[in-house]
Each structure stands twice: as structure tokens, then as C-alpha cells.
């Protein structure tokens, strides 16, 4: 999460898009944004875009979900190396040649998130889908990593 929002200087003096909810709401937004991205320790804090990641586990798979709105699927790079999943890409700026800018909150530029997976996965069977701006990566566990039932015998 970028603590410092980058604003282009306003080009028009009168801002027709005034938000109804005022400063109150802006401060709420600052506090609402997940601080876990800073304190999680999964990667060093770099200024810029840090898309939100979720990691789920069931008995057969790990599922990683990343919020990446406004990308094309060709622009997203996913790689897996030594049990560390890396998701990166670049969001290019769409030039609006003949337009002035009133607000510019959307991040533009390169992003990268890495995630160390708790146990081994089968790299050949990893699948990813991108829908509604959400990237879902499914990583099947290797047989050795799946939980096994252990029978308790009584004498």
C-alpha cells in the first residue's frame, strides 16, 4: 500500500466532482486500508502498488487470490521458484491526450508480490484464471505434502 498518494496538480480551479462525504471519509479511507500489507513481512515495503493477496489452503491445493483490476491477462507474470510464488506485472498509463486531469488515484507502473508457500506444490499442475480483475492461482500440493490419516491401533 502506498502511504503517499500521488496527485497530478489540478488543472482546473473549480473541481466539479466534489465528494459529498468530506474529509471525514478520506480519513476513514486511510485507516481502513489494510495495514497488514506493511506489517506482514512477506516482502520489504516498497512504495507503489501492492495488490492485496489472499492465501487459502485445503487438503489438495493452495489457492492464491490477488486483486489486480484493469490488467490484461498477457500483462500478468506468474512464476514459481523453490516454493516461492511471484506475481508481477506492469500497468501502463492510458494517455488521455486532449483531457485535463481532475483526479488521479489509480496506480500506474510496475508491481510485484511474492509469497512463500507453506509446503511443496506440483509446479506442472499450477493453474491461473483472471476474472473481474481478480487473479486466482491454484497450486496443487505434491502427494508427499498432503495430509495423511494415521490409524491409531489399540492392543
Amino acid at each position: 500500500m502506498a502511504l503517499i498518494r500521488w496527485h497530478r496538480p489540478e488543472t482546473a480551479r473549480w473541481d466539479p466532482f466534489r465528494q459529498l462525504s468530506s474529509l471525514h471519509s478520506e480519513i476513514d479511507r486511510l485507516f481502513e486500508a489494510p495495514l497488514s500489507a506493511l506489517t506482514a513481512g512477506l516482502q520489504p515495503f516498497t512504495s507503489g502498488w501492492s495488490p492485496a493477496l489472499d492465501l487459502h489452503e485445503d487438503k489438495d491445493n493452495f489457492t492464491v487470490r490477488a486483486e489486480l483490476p484493469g490488467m490484461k491477462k498477457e500483462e500478468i507474470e506468474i512464476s514459481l521458484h523453490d516454493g516461492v510464488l511471484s506475481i508481477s506485472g506492469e500497468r501502463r498509463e492510458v494517455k488521455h491526450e486532449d483531457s485535463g486531469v481532475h483526479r488521479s488515484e489509480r496506480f500506474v507502473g510496475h508491481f510485484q508480490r511474492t509469497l512463500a508457500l507453506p509446503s511443496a506444490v506440483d509446479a506442472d499442475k499450477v493453474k491461473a484464471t483472471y476474472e473481474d480483475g481478480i487473479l486466482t492461482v491454484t497450486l496443487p500440493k505434491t502427494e508427499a505434502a498432503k495430509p495423511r490419516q494415521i490409524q491409531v491401533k489399540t492392543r
Partner: protein
Amino acid sequence: MNAVAEREKTNGTQVLQPERTYVAPEVNIFESKDQYVLEAEMPGVNKEGLEITLQDNILTITGHRADQPIGGEPLYRESRKADYRRVFELDPGIDGEKISARVDQGVLTLTLPKAERVKPRKITVA
């Protein structure tokens, strides 16, 4: 602080929806001589989840996430279950009837054309 903000957003009427929280989506707003363009980022929202209303000059954008449930235990979670909402007061020069919307990969793009009488016009001197 959250409870007070919720009441503000619902114009003072008491809405009993304890689970409903909203997050404001990030937006870009551009203006050219013919129109405004507004882009709002709402990952997880598709056409079915979008509500865009215009009343007087107040534009309200609400996006409901279509989150497919993921099986298994969450080990680590940064995303939030909240839906998206943001309210704008529009330039009265915008032609409300001609606003069009498109959504692609979680990004809503609204095109708001200016009404004819408001566009800059050259006035020729006879």
C-alpha cells in the same frame, strides 16, 4: 468512527444492515472539451454487481463483489469483504441522459458527455 460515517452515507436514515461496510474505490477523472471520463477500480465486481444511480446532480456508484467462495482455510488474508461505494456531485453541465458505462476486469469506465449548451463555443465576430 465507522458508525458515524455509515450514518452520513445513508443520509441520516437508520439502515439496519450490520454486515454492510463499504470501501471507496480509487478513481481517475479526466475532462475534455466534450465529456468527462471517470474510471473506478472495483476488483471482484462485474456488470451484475454494479449499481449506478443519478439523482438531481448526485451520482452514486455502488459495486457488489461477486466473490466466488474459495474452498479451504484462509491462511493469510489482505483483501476485504467490503463492497464499493462512492458518491459524487456532478457538474450541472453534464447531460445525465447520455451517461454511458462499461466494466472490464473490475474497472468501471463512465463517460459523461457535456450538454451542448455548455461546450466551449467559438463566437465569430461579424
